[in-house]
């Protein structure tokens, strides 16, 4: 069954603005990962946050994790047209090898 659910489903912003998307999940996790998918391409890993971490940064990306609320957020600062893509969260359960993906947030950055 689907573990992660992203919100919103779609987001349209102006270049230079920040984009925030959220992910909620249902069961206890070992870690949560964010991936990007450009149109017609495979997924690319962006960032991994473990269950004992609360925040991580990577370049213009900032991820937070609230295990008490079973939710995570991905913030992209100073967005660029090249950030136009779908963003997926994926969770790995505590006793699980597999990743469970949500349906993604489609982000469009307007020039």
């Amino acid at each position: 069954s689907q573990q992660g659910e992203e919100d919103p489903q779609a987001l349209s912003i102006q270049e230079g603005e920040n984009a925030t998307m959220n992910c909620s999940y249902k069961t206890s996790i070992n870690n949560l990962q964010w991936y990007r998918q450009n149109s017609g391409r495979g997924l690319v890993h962006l960032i991994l946050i473990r269950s004992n971490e609360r925040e991580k940064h990577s370049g213009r990306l900032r991820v937070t994790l609230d295990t008490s609320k079973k939710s995570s957020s991905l913030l992209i600062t100073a967005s660029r047209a090249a950030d136009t893509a779908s963003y997926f969260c994926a969770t790995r359960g505590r006793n699980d090898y597999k990743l469970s993906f949500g349906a993604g947030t489609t982000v469009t950055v307007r020039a």
Partner: protein
Amino acid sequence: DTAVSQTPKYLVTQMGNDKSIKCEQNLGHDTMYWYKQDSKKFLKIMFSYNNKELIINETVPNRFSPKSPDKAHLNLHINSLELGDSAVYFCASSQVPSRRETQYFGPGTRLLVL
């Protein structure tokens, strides 16, 4: 250098046919996966192999059979194709268990069953 490659990129076929998709990774990873992405972009795990051994087998019709001749290859054979099999199929690999357990995805195979 392509890390995870899949062939073919596009596959158009008639209902009832049998087809195979091939995947190869040159990352030295022990674990490989097949995912199905439907038209709503929902990505669902189908199978996973670790060192040629099947470790994940989700609820997938028996018409789908994965084969791993060695740890760098994971192929997917589909028998008696149905309209509902139309989707994008992604292969991925990772090093599990590991602190770097991110998955590396191939470019996808777009399957259209007519």
